[in-house]
C-alpha cells in the first residue's frame, strides 16, 4: 500500500494543482458575472431581472453533471465539439455564475432597509449608495457563502474526469485500474480534497475576521 502512495503522490498532486487553478480562474470569472447578474436581477426590471431569475433556476435545478454532459456530449450533436478543457471552463463559469448571482443577491438584499433609507435621506445617488454603503456590507455578510462557493466549485472538478480532463480523479482512476489498488488511491484523493477545502475555509474565515472588524 505504501509503495502506491509513494508512487502516485506526485501524479495526484499535479492533478490536484490543475483542479485548483481551474477552480480559482473559473470562480473569479463566475463571481464577476454573478455580481453583475445580481445587480441586473435586483435593478434590471422585469425582462432583464426575469431572464436572470430563470437562468439561476435552471442552473440550480439541473444536476451539475448533466450540465457538463450537455456542453460536452450534447453540443456534439450539432457539430460543436468542445475540447475537455474549454468544456470544463465554460461549465464551471456558467454553473458558478448561477450560484454567485444568488449569493450576491442575498447579500445585497440582506443589508437592512434602514441603510437604504439613511443613504437616500442624505441625498446619496443610487450608484454611490451601492458602492459606498450596500456592497461593502453585503460583502461581509456573504463571506461565509463565498467560502462554501469556492469549495463547491472545487468539488465539482471531480466530475471532469468523466469528459477526459486529466485531473486528480482521472489519474486516480488510471492508477486504480493499473494497480488494482483503488483503496489507497481514492483515499488519497479524499485527503487532498479535505486539505484543500480546509485551507479555503481557513483563508475564508481569516479574511472574514479582517474585513468584519467593525462588527
Amino acid at each position, binding site marked *: 500500500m505504501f509503495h502506491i502512495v509513494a508512487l502516485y503522490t506526485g501524479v495526484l498532486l499535479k492533478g490536484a494543482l490543475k483542479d485548483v487553478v481551474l477552480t480559482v480562474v473559473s470562480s473569479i470569472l463566475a463571481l464577476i458575472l454573478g455580481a453583475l447578474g445580481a445587480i441586473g436581477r435586483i435593478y434590471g426590471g422585469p425582462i432583464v431581472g426575469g431572464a436572470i431569475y430563470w437562468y439561476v433556476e435552471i442552473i440550480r435545478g439541473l444536476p451539475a453533471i448533466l450540465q457538463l454532459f450537455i456542453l460536452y456530449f450534447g453540443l456534439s450533436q450539432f457539430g460543436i465539439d468542445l475540447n475537455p478543457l474549454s468544456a470544463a471552463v465554460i461549465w464551471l463559469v456558467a454553473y458558478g455564475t448561477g450560484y454567485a448571482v444568488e449569493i450576491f443577491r442575498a447579500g445585497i438584499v440582506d443589508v*437592512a432597509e*434602514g*441603510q437604504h*433609507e*439613511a*443613504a*437616500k*435621506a*442624505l*441625498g*446619496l*445617488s*443610487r450608484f*454611490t449608495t451601492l458602492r*459606498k*454603503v450596500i456592497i*461593502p*456590507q453585503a460583502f*461581509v455578510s456573504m463571506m461565509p457563502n463565498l467560502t462554501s462557493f469556492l469549495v463547491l466549485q472545487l468539488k465539482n472538478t471531480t466530475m471532469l474526469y468523466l469528459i477526459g480532463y486529466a485531473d486528480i480523479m482521472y489519474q486516480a482512476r488510471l492508477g486504480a485500474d493499473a494497480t488494482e489498488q483503488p483503496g489507497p488511491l481514492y483515499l488519497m484523493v479524499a485527503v487532498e480534497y479535505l486539505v484543500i477545502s480546509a485551507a479555503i475555509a481557513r483563508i475564508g474565515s481569516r479574511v472574514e475576521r479582517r474585513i468584519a*472588524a*467593525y*462588527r
Partner: protein
Amino acid sequence: MSNEVVVRVNNVTKRFGERVIFESVSLDVKKSEVVAIVGPSGAGKSTFIRCINHLHAFDGGSIEVLGHVLVGGTQPTRAELQQLNSKVGMVFQTFNLFPHLTVLDNIILAPMQVKKIARQDATDQAMNLLKMVGLQQKAQSFPKRLSGGEQQRVAICRALAMEPELMLFDEPTSMLDPELVGEVLEFIQRLAGGGMTMLLVTHEMMFAKDVADTVVIMADGGIAEKGPARQVLEAPRTERARSFLRRVLSPMAHDDRDLVANGGDET
C-alpha cells in the same frame, strides 16, 4: 420664527394597498418652527414625516418642501429627489449609522460624495460637529462600539454635516435606555434654540411641551388636533386628543374623568 413657509403639506393621503394610513392631512411649517408630532402608535406619524423627504411616496395631495413640489401619485425625478434630500436632514429611531464606516467616515461620506467637498474640509467640519456633542475622541470608532445615545448624537451630526435647512426626527429617543435619552434631547433642544426648522415625531410629551412651538396630534388616520404646544397638550379641544393624552400621561388610570391638565406633571 419668520413667516416664510418652508413646508406646506396640502391634503396628503397615504395608503398601503387597501389600507388608508392617513387621509387629507394638511400642515404648514414656518422657518425656524419646531413642530412635534405625537399620537398613538400606528397612527402613521413615521410614515408622515417620511413623505416629506419622499422616503415614502404618497397617493394624493401635494407637499412643497424648500421650493420643491411633490405631487401625490407621481414620481419625482431621481436628480430632483437627491437635491431635496441633500437639503433635508433626517434622524432615525434606529440611528441607521453605516456600521462599516467609522464615526468620522459616516459624517463626511455625504458631504464628500454629494456636495463634492474636499476630504480635509469635510473632516474639519465633522470634527467641529463632534466637538459640539463632546464625541471628538470617538471619531475613529465604529458605531457598534458606541452607546445608543452616542450613536444617535453621531447620526444627528451626520445629518447636520449636509447643512440642512430642515431636520426630520423620527422618534429619535425611543430606542434608547432611559438614562441616555437626556443627552440626545439636550442636543436637539440646542439645535431648536439655534433656529433650525424641525419636524419631530416623539413620545416625550414634556420635551414636546418645552421645545416645540407647535404640537400636532395624529390619530385615526388624520390630524386630531394641532396648535401651540402648551395649548394642545394642556387644554386639548377635541375628544380624540383628550383621550390620547389621558392614556399617555397616566397610563394606569382607567377613570375617564382623569384630568389632563394635572396629568402633565405626573410623567
